[in-house]
């Protein structure tokens, strides 16, 4: 077991953990987005989707626990990486320019990460840990989105997620060692397309919902 801990605790091990948990979140986002897209089929379809989902019962709880676990790993490891990296250069440069490798996504990972953590907590408070006895899922979302501030906040959050994922996705492949000139350009494109899809897919929802409610 010792080797296992020391492997995960090494710099590459930490990256591996970030990569695998990150990839899981990408899958989750994809599923989540697919579900949410039912909104475009009208509120009944959306409510039906929500009910079916909740009907899965223990499976959903299991998935939720898993997601929580992944989140803890992703966030904690991220914190350790951030702290370690901060310590690795005690004296900063007076002048530092990017040579062209960094992107907005990559340069802001820790910050977009923290922002997303805040957003997710709020998101859960708003949509998940809420009394669902006397309102349908659609009512919950249309109520929440009736505040223009919230819509703004939500849309900004989706852009932030887009940036985070634009670096995170290809980076996960690099971290697990899957980088080859043959397919890396493709992974880069997929990362961009995926982050646009997530950003736009979720981001347009509140606008549509405000329109139809």
């Amino acid at each position: 077991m010792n080797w296992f801990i020391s492997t995960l605790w090494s710099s590459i091990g930490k990256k591996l953990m970030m990569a695998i948990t990150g990839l899981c979140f990408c899958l989750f986002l994809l599923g989540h987005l697919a579900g949410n897209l039912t909104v475009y089929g009208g509120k009944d379809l959306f409510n039906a989707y929500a009910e079916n989902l909740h009907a899965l019962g223990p499976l959903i709880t299991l998935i939720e626990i898993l997601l929580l676990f992944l989140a803890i790993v992703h966030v904690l490891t991220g914190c350790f990486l951030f702290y370690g990296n901060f310590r690795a250069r005690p004296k900063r440069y007076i002048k530092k320019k990017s040579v062209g490798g960094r992107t907005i996504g990559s340069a802001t990972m820790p910050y977009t990460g923290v922002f997303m953590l805040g957003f997710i907590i709020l998101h859960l408070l708003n949509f998940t840990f809420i009394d669902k006895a006397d309102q349908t899922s659609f009512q919950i979302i249309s109520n929440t989105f009736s505040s223009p501030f919230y819509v703004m906040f939500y849309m900004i959050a989706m852009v932030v997620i887009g940036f985070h994922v634009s670096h995170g996705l290809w980076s996960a492949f690099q971290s697990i060692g899957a980088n080859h000139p043959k397919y890396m350009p493709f992974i880069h494109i997929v990362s961009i397309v995926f982050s646009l899809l997530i950003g736009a897919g979720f981001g347009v929802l509140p606008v549509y919902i405000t329109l139809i409610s």
Partner: protein
Amino acid sequence: MTQEKGEKSINLTVKVWRQEGPVVKGRLETYEARNISTNMSFLEMLDVINEELTLEGKEPIAFDHDCREGICGMCGAMVNGRAHGPEKGTTLCQLHMRHFSDRDTVVIEPWRSRAFKLVRDLVVDRSAFDKIIQAGGYISVNTGGSPDGNAILVPQEAAEKAMDAAACIGCGACVASCPNASAMLFVGAKVSQFALLPQGKPEAEKRALAMVREMDDLRFGNCTNERECEAACPKEISITNIARLNREFLKASFF
């Protein structure tokens, strides 16, 4: 000597990090570099400043250099926030002043990383790289008793890729330019060279584990795939070598 075609003379304001030793406080000092020929190399420009400083009875700027042709890896500093200056695939000694304009201000700082202690001015201690190599950056063969050179077949493509990785000059620009001061490109290049060659296979697992452990122990930062190292590397070594290191390390750990 006569003037070369296209040769110009420029004046620069140069701000250099001066620090007498590892524990004293340092500061940026400003010098005027006058009549700098655009055919000079960056280090020759520093030579000119140093001659003047010496004649004025001041201490010249300490900077590391040796081959002055981009191969020994001795030179290196941050020039206007970029490792080895603005030109791609170029060491500081090969950077020529024709890439600067009259009246430019040039800020020069040493490599900064916890693992590279400052020695003086622009000189840093990169022995951490040697320690990483000592941990396993070699093939364990004693002198004598090797089979005929042609007994080991190496596919041309593998030899070329290994050579791409082996071109590393150990200058430290990857660490210096990495936002996290990580040494992954350096380690990745060495691990890759041997992972690609049949001679390196027997020790591949041990090597990857030992070198990564040493790198971590020396407190280099963690790679977050920012690709700054690849862009700053004077030998343009690719981060596919880091991916290969990741692969080798994970393979060695889990399989």
